[in-house]
């Protein structure tokens, strides 16, 4: 039952990633194509544009959600492969512990950076 829940979360994370990462990839990597429609989409990596996105609560929340979904989806996928290759219950347990703690640490780092940038970008210079 627990494994079924994990799998359901994996599929749910995939749907979230599809929408949010799809938008992220379009904004970050298809900027030249989007700039043909509106020049404001050009150069998303320029510091001014980075700050403008950081200032937006919607972008910040979207990135935190994306970070959680991608970490879960990616680490669960890798865990599946490891469990397929190593049937030992001990290896499975340690993989789960390592991935939950590593994933939580990366989520903490990434979301701290996002939220701190959001706060700093909203503070008048």
């Amino acid at each position, binding site marked *: 039952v627990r494994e079924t829940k994990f799998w359901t979360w994996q599929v749910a994370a995939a749907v979230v990633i599809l929408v949010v990462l799809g938008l992220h990839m379009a904004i970050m*990597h298809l900027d030249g194509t989007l700039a043909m429609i509106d020049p404001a989409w050009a150069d998303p990596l320029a510091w001014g544009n980075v700050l403008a996105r950081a200032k937006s609560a919607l972008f910040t929340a979207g990135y935190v959600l994306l970070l959680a979904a991608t970490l879960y989806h990616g680490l669960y996928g890798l865990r599946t492969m490891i469990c397929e290759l190593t049937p030992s219950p001990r290896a499975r347990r340690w993989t789960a512990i390592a991935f939950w703690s590593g994933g939580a640490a990366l989520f903490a780092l*990434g979301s701290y950076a996002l939220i701190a940038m959001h706060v700093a970008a909203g503070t008048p210079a």
Partner: protein
Amino acid sequence: MTPDEAPIHTFPNRLGILGWLGKGRHGVERYLYVLHRITGLALLLFLLLHVFVTSSRLLGREVWERLMALTHQPLFQWAEFLVYLAFAFHALNGVRLILVELGFAAGRAEPPVYPYRGSLQRQRPLMIALMIVAAVLMLTGGFEFFWLDR
């Protein structure tokens, strides 16, 4: 014993990673499965690096601009394009997997009359359509990376 405590029945994985390469006669979907795993691993590796690189924004504009100048080197541009290709494939093949998981594209029930049509054959038009969409996304990305960004 609760269902959570029940032991998971496992079978020896005799072929290991070699099994990914396919031993025997398989449809194209088998190779999409292998490619889905390879692109997934590549995207996971990229994600881990990406978290650290984007977190460096906290160190200020100068550090960020220095890092971005580094990522504009041709080698990084190629690596970024490969990540984009991996994303396009993984996303569209993932859409196929979710649709199949939810029971779409299986078609109506048919009597088992020769020549039989397996479930993979019924789902193949969906696979072809989604791979065409992936190819269009890849071409758009190539146009962007190698034409517009230069």
